[in-house]
């Protein structure tokens, strides 16, 4: 099963070609109501999101709850149909003629969910759950179960002890290991981890994170790591994408984003991160209020209602993702802000 070293036979474009390219992904959810069940409003869950994931990297996606992280994940898996947008998996457009089918893409792309309990069928044992998808895809039963047991061992569980257990008989950390094993059973190349460690205890979280890192090296995986936990994202990611109200506000290499955030929202987010150094601890609230309602997002820059640098130009148009105006960092650092002072984080003298 291990594919380390040799080039993956499914690899199409070589190392330089992004594994997944997302272009202008958009999903609006209708809000129905009234007697006739008419569409009253739309939730702008994901709006014009574009990014790419390179082979072998870990792309972190951060943002507050409700910013569209999980919707993005489900759109990528095609668990919900996007309104607009193109997915290109290793050079093949997903669902297009001459491209790759959704089913074929799903075999190479798997997902681990946040809730370890509800992601497992309560009526199936651990091996049942892991072997299920490969068996459905035509792997003989016996072999599927043997591979499931070997996968259990690879995620740190003892097959003799845990294979025939039911989800309620396992701890959260153990269940999440099983969920990871199930995702790996189809031998994917890309794994989307949607808050996969967020619900775990800190010590268990660290173990699972280390496990994820080992598995990544062993199976040549690429991760999309979605989390609201800034420390964890910094630890696992190569590149980071910051989302706010369904849009990408900043993206770039993890060091650049964490050392020199260019978007006022990213800066506020990072400032809200509890510091390990007592001298640097702050009680001042970097961000006040809740994000605006995604049903009726502000015009132009969606962050402007909470941004202290906001000015007229911010309301005029949605700022495009572009290299920072005042840059000394890497070229791939992109920020969606048009106010130079905001990008620099200059302290405002007047209110």
């Amino acid at each position, binding site marked *: 099963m291990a594919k380390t070293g040799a080039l993956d036979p499914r690899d199409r474009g070589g190392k330089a070609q992004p594994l997944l390219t997302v272009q202008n992904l958009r999903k609006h959810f209708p809000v129905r109501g009234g007697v006739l069940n008419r569409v009253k409003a739309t939730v702008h869950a994901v709006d014009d999101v574009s990014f790419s994931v390179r082979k072998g990297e870990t792309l972190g996606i951060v943002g507050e709850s409700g910013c569209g992280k999980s919707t993005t994940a489900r759109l990528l898996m095609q*668990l919900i149909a996007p309104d607009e947008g193109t997915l290109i998996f290793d050079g093949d457009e997903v669902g297009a003629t001459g491209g790759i089918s959704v089913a074929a893409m*799903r075999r190479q792309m798997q997902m681990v969910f946040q809730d370890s309990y509800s992601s497992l069928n309560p009526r199936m044992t651990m091996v049942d759950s892991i072997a299920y998808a490969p068996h459905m895809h035509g792997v003989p039963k016996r072999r599927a179960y*043997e591979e499931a047991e*070997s996968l259990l*061992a690879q995620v*740190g569980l003892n097959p003799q002890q845990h294979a025939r257990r039911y989800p309620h008989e396992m701890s959260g950390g153990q269940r999440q290991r099983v969920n990871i094993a*199930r995702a790996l059973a189809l031998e994917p190349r890309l794994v989307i981890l949607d808050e996969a460690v967020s619900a775990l205890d800190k010590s268990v979280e660290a173990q699972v994170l280390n496990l994820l890192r*080992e598995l990544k090296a062993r199976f040549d995986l690429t991760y999309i790591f979605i989390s609201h936990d800034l420390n964890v994202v910094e630890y696992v990611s190569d590149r980071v994408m910051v989302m706010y109200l369904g849009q990408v506000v900043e993206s770039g290499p993890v060091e650049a984003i964490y050392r020199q955030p260019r978007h006022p929202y990213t800066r506020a987010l990072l400032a809200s991160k509890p510091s390990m150094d007592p001298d640097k601890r702050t009680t001042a609230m970097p961000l006040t209020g809740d994000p605006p309602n995604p049903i009726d997002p502000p015009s132009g820059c969606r962050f402007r209602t909470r941004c202290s640098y906001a000015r007229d130009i911010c309301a005029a148009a949605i700022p495009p993702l572009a290299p920072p105006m005042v840059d000394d960092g890497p070229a791939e650092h992109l920020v969606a802000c048009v106010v130079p002072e905001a990008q620099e984080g200059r302290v405002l003298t007047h209110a």
Partner: protein
Amino acid sequence: MASDTTMAQPGTLAAPAAAFIAPAGYWKLVRRRLLRDKTTLFVTAMLVAIVFISLAAPWVTSYDPYQGSIMLRLKPIGTPGHWLGTDETGRDIWTRLCYGGRLSLLAGVVPVAVSLVVGSFLGIVAGFVGGRIGTLIMRTMDVFYAFPSILLAVAICGLLGNGLTNSIIALAVVFIPPMVRIAETVTAQTRQLDFVEAARAGGTSTMQIIRHHILSNVLGTILVYATSLISLSIILSAGLSFLGLGVTPPQAEWGLMLNSLRQAIYVQPYVAALPGLLIFVTSMCFNLMSDGLRGAMDVRLNR
């Protein structure tokens, strides 16, 4: 948590771990848990006995269920030759009860079985597909909820005319709406759990998801509910016969027997109570069995 066991090479790990463990199977586990439950075993044995005696009625009694004797009317329990006494036309009660079990059990089980199939099909479709189809199914069922169940059964029976078949149809119609509602609720709950999405992400087709992931989680609840309906069905069908809407005399059926023996309640109260007692015991057994089944099917409860 043994996280350090993972450090070895994957190849070497797979070899010792490959001691093939056969898939346990959910129903095997349920059976094992049932066998440990004494109460459920006992009531199930009782039910098996009742069913067996009913089916074997011609062999467990030598009397004709329809042939009475004017000389032997309303004999008490313990009469030589008629150990459970006789009814108002001198027919042997034990014989009548044995033969009556056939119709009573039939009227108890068949409506439930019909509503189980139809109801869970409609309910799973409504719960899984949702949208307009779901709304259509559920609102149609709501119409039936407007009537109390016994009234609805009486009305349908009155409409179709009396007879066993019609009372079975009436009861099936009565039981379908609650069955649909339960199936729909459980399906809708199950459908939005992450493992269904995970299965879909793993390339499982909709039919396979329903068969392997929805059904296994929904069927338990529906089955338990259905067994609890059997007792209600027996009582309702007995009630219909009692009202003269179900089985017609001189056929032997517990509800009908209760009706005709009603007039003898001051003469032979114990004999008159026998069909009622049997209805009570049988429905009680079905209820207890359904309780036991629920306990055994819920793998989350430790036994």
